[in-house]
């Protein structure tokens, strides 16, 4: 019987054959990624559990990006970054990207792609639920907690159940008013927040093949919002070209067999999909923008691993160009590389950064920032009574700060259109 990409990667990294979904196996980990929130407790568990025998299994395979609570006066948060810094210095870690230096990158999932850690056919484990983002590169990537990460740090291994796979096929050409965000919100409405629990979500179809890597990463990024173990998109020329440009030429390409077995298959015609939102307080509380148009807003937010990539800002400026925002609008480039691109890339002869500034947006430094609320001095954090529309990934109660705020999740096009009006607006009104 045929196999899916995920099953093939499991076979390769478990050194086993003919695995069946549901079976538990030990996988060799190719990259372990951690950050300032989960890194310190991971290190502490690793030291306690291994004691005198504590040894990092492979320093080259350990990657640490402080990114969550960076621009804050919170002493405990700053101490967490100090812990990482000391650890990196003590063990001479080659892949530590320190705050306040040229090496600082910002949000880990985007930095993993930019810095060339996303290698097709490999296994990447991170102490962050959105680690599934890397699956856009035809690899197995998933999030774990600190104990699992500490175990990997010492052994290079993780136990994992072989997941069943679900397939999502998007046919047709993506219209200019839709982005990958609308597609993943569509899926979430269809399968709900536990529709893919313990399963792999494989994305394919013409509309996916036309997307660049950053848009693909929006899809795989939110696989976790459906409970998915991983999201995955097979390698094609778009992937190869991205990797070639950063000097990566050699890797394993896996493809699902035609007779591979799927738990379920969903087919969409993108011409029938409309700009979509997730209403408060769950990413699966889907509606079309037209149905909530006019909802008054107090804040707009474009940022995070989900919605702070260069393509998200390229979408936003198409609508913001020559307009002014009516409510506080925060622009948070996910990575320092994206921040630099905002200064260089132009639209109608003006840099993206200038377009945002002219529109009256607040541009913040690269980090996870208010996507997950963060310490009380985090820029863009929601406060009591706020109604926010955001390109981020979760809108559970209190996710962006106050439990007494409401968050709508939407595409960067919808957020930009809504920022101009001060109420939720269909992007087609501006395109």
């Amino acid at each position, binding site marked *: 019987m045929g196999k899916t990409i995920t099953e093939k990667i499991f076979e390769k990294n478990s050194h086993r054959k003919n695995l069946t979904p549901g079976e*538990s196996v030990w996988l060799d980990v190719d990259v372990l990624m951690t950050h300032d*929130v*989960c890194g*310190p*407790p991971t290190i*502490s568990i690793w030291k*306690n*559990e*291994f004691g005198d*025998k504590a040894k990092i299994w492979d320093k080259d395979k350990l990657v640490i990006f402080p990114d*969550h*609570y960076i621009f804050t006066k*919170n002493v*405990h*948060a700053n*101490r*967490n970054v100090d812990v990482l810094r000391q650890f990196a210095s003590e063990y001479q870690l080659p892949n530590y990207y320190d705050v306040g230096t040229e090496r600082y990158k910002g949000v880990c999932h985007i930095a993993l792609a930019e810095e060339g850690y996303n290698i097709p056919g490999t296994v990447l484990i*991170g*102490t*962050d*639920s959105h*680690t599934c983002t890397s699956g856009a590169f035809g690899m197995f990537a998933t*999030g*774990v*907690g*600190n*104990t*699992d990460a*500490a*175990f990997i740090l*010492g*052994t290079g291994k993780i*136990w994992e*159940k072989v997941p069943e796979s679900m397939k999502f096929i998007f046919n047709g050409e993506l219209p200019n008013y839709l982005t990958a965000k609308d597609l993943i919100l569509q899926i979430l409405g269809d399968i709900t*927040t*536990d529709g893919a*629990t*313990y399963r792999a979500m494989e994305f394919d179809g013409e509309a996916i093949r036309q997307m660049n890597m950053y848009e693909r990463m929006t899809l795989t990024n939110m696989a976790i919002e459906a*409970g998915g*173990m991983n999201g995955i998109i097979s390698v094609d020329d778009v992937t190869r070209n991205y990797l070639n440009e950063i000097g990566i030429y050699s890797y394993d390409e896996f493809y699902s067999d035609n007779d591979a077995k799927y738990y379920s298959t969903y087919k969409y015609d993108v011409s029938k999909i409309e700009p979509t939102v997730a209403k408060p307080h*769950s990413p699966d509380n889907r509606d079309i923008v037209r149905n909530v148009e006019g909802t008054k807003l107090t804040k707009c937010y474009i940022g995070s691993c989900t919605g702070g990539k260069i393509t998200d800002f390229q979408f936003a400026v198409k609508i913001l160009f020559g307009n002014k925002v009516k409510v506080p609008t925060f622009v948070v480039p996910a990575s320092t590389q994206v921040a630099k691109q905002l200064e260089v890339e132009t639209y109608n002869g003006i840099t993206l950064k200038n377009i945002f500034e002219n529109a009256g947006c607040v541009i913040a430094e690269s980090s996870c920032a208010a996507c*997950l*609320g*963060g*310490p*009380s001095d985090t820029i863009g954090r929601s406060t009591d009574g706020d109604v926010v529309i955001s390109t981020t990934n*979760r809108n*559970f*109660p*209190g*996710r962006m*700060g106050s*439990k007494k705020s409401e968050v709508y999740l939407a595409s960067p096009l919808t957020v930009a259109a809504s920022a101009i009006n001060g109420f939720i607006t269909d992007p087609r009104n501006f395109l």
Partner: protein
Amino acid sequence: MEKIIKGKAYVLGNNIDTDQIIPAEHLVYSTSIPDELKMYGHFALSGVPIDKAGLPNGNIPFIKDDKTESEFTIIIGGTNFGCGSSREHAPLALNVAGVKAIIAESYARIFYRNSVDGGFLIPIESEEKLNDKIKTGDELEIDLIKNLVKNNSNKTEFELKPLGSVFEIVESGGLFNYARKNQMI
């Protein structure tokens, strides 16, 4: 591992995500400094909107005043318990607050792994929906051999799913103990 777990129930709804279990702003505390570790107990479940805290009536704080432990040691959830982020601080916070076990219809993968691998608490799946049959404050008794939960407050009894493939890790008290027992490390 205790085979019989007794305690008072604290009942919650569906999709209790990790931000409700331990809001992200509190993740700054050190898990290795005892006084700071207690803060995780203090803030456990503080993100649950108050009208949904302690069903069926709500408005029952899980942690009272400045306490760091709860009088409730068994949580009854619905579907997709622990969805959201990968923070292991979530089962850890519940553990620090004194929670021994959760009974829910289903769990999000990372929360389930973290509970088991970290040895923080036992995540048990129920055969049927229980958060409309058990009330906050009910005295419960979980039997992990017979896979049953008895509600001693109204003499009802419900079936639980066996722990299955993770039983050995749970019994060992977490992944590291399991690995040592099996000479993996």
